[in-house]
């Protein structure tokens, strides 16, 4: 689940002509979910594109990092897009959408404000669905090597000789 799913063959115009906006920054079309800037897209193998788009939004709302793009959240939940996980994911998102209806806004993806979506998530945070999605994100999101530089984390260092000559004690402000 650590590869960022990217299809760069669509122009933004083609993308918008084939899909519909689905909440902030996401476009859902037949068989795919994409960033509305067409910078990335992921093709669906098993899940409904709406379900994937909702999972991506849910992932961001659970672990919101404003400097981390949707493609990384998409990669973090892409593992549910397999036949064995369809029942789990579709049922969970159905539950989430039911809880969202209470707000009067419609589906989860239709709720425009993060704070209101988070309030909906709080109503399901003890469910096995939520806990499994959240638990999966701990590795699915933070163990993506591509996100590490966004946090400043440098990862493996042995191949570069460690930090002996690369700043293990270079702090200057203390």
């Amino acid at each position, binding site marked *: 689940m650590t590869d960022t799913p990217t299809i760069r063959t669509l122009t933004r115009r083609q993308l918008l002509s084939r899909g519909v906006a689905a909440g902030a920054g996401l476009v859902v079309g037949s068989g795919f979910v994409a960033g509305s800037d067409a910078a990335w897209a992921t093709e669906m193998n098993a899940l409904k594109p709406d379900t994937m788009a909702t999972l991506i939004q849910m992932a961001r709302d659970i672990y*919101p990092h404003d400097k981390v793009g949707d493609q990384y959240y998409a990669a973090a939940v892409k593992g549910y897009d397999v036949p064995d996980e369809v029942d789990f994911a579709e049922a969970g998102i159905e539950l989430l959408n039911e809880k969202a209806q209470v707000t009067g806004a419609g589906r989860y993806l239709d709720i425009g404000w993060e704070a209101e979506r988070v309030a909906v998530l709080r109503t399901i945070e003890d469910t096995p669905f939520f806990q499994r999605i959240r638990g999966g994100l701990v*590795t699915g999101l*933070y163990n993506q090597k591509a996100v590490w530089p966004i946090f400043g*984390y*440098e990862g493996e260092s042995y191949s570069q000789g*460690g*930090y002996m000559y690369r700043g*293990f*004690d270079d702090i200057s402000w*203390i």
Partner: protein
Amino acid sequence: MTAPFDKNDDSVVVIIGTGAGGGVLANELAKKGVSVVALEAGGRYLPEDYVNDEWDSFGQLAWLDPRTTSGDWRVAKDFSGLPAWIVKAVGGTTTHWAGASLRFQEHEWKALTSYGEVEGASLLDWPIDAAEMAPWYDLAEKKLGVTRTNGIPGLPGNNNYKVFEAGAKKLGYEKVHTGNMAINSEERDGRMACQQTGFCFQGCKWGAKWSSAYTDIPAGEATGNLEVRERSHVARILHNEAGKVTGVEYFDADGNLQMQKARIVAVAGNSFESPRMLLNSASSMFPDGLANSSGQVGRNYMRHMTGSVYATFEQPVRMWRGTTMAGIIQDEARHDPSRGFVGGYELETLALGLPFMAAFLNPGAWGREFTTALDSYENMAGMWIVGEDMPQEGNGVTLSETKDQYGLPVANVHFDDHPNDIAMRNHAYDRGRAVYDAVGATRTMPTPPYPSTHNLGTNRMSANAQDGVVNKWGQTHDIENLFISDGSQFTTGAAENPTLTIVALAIRQADHIAREMSAQNL
């Protein structure tokens, strides 16, 4: 006879486990000419195999066979199937350990006498003391190449240490330095100096940190007296009608049950597996398990009072660079009941990579309170708290309903915090926060205990047979040719990281066993 040994050779000492206890005992006995078969449940991984990647390394080295948990400790909720972060490999948890090598303080050998009776605690004095252990500590420090002993210089301080040290000094702490570390600060013993790579917990790629995997084990093998059988998972220890142990049954790498005869068996599988093996070896003669006439096998489990404090600052720290734990404040390690608890604690620098920080900073947490902390990961400094926890009779290892891949009942680990542990942790959290506040932290965060790495006490040492499982030599009170050689023999935990003491006890035990064997007493 030279290694390899025949399975019917009943002249060998069988050692179960190859970490700080078993690995050292194996080498020390082999050097004295004793024939040793060491059974190791894990495989063999050496520096070239280790990976600078937290989760990949965890998958490579960690003990991931099932275990179960109970009790009010938060680990049981957050990591219910993973009570410990310890290693299943040749070298055991010496591949993963941080290298902190501290002697017990004199009063800690006599916890009951020093602290008095503590309600709810099963405190006991060790049957040995600081004077008895001093020469064995000397040998252990030489073996491990501990910095600030034997003329070995301290390690240089990394960024995380510099923040920690500056805060400590502002608070007036005096015993602040880069630690007594079993990590080479200069080339020594054919192993190179620390290259400040980080990833100490993932196995040292340079071999600068002492691990029995690439020191004592190959040294013992080179004598021709040690055979290490890796991927050999012990099922039970066998005994005869006279009540002496006679051999060990184990599953080999192919899952086939094998039996190795033995003159002596030494158990060193960590404080979960060692009592589990004794309990799983129950027979009609020993219905409660081997060496358990006292009912103390599995009891008095200690895990050190632990926790962490992380702090964020306006500017970068990059705490992951360099030695993971080379930094210590020892001023709070004293026994000073005016603080509201008995015993003391050490504060030690600690860094986690981003993946483990996400997993351990506040397990189960989500939302912006959690993620804004990680947003400042680059500006974060961290420390670990390690203090003496109270032994409690009800804390410990019992056999679970759950079975492992061989059909053997796994260890259930039960732990409730003692009020003394909680008071000490809260005190330590406050002091840790103060250290970072003193140097301008913008936010400080208490982090709950991780899955245990210091697992102690489940086969404890006692002067009287009814109070514990082993005598002052680690020899079981009940069975004269059955020994315990790991941290499970700890009577109390003291405030110090336990490895140096495990190693010192193993060297001393090897001396005793070899002497008793030559005298035909064993």
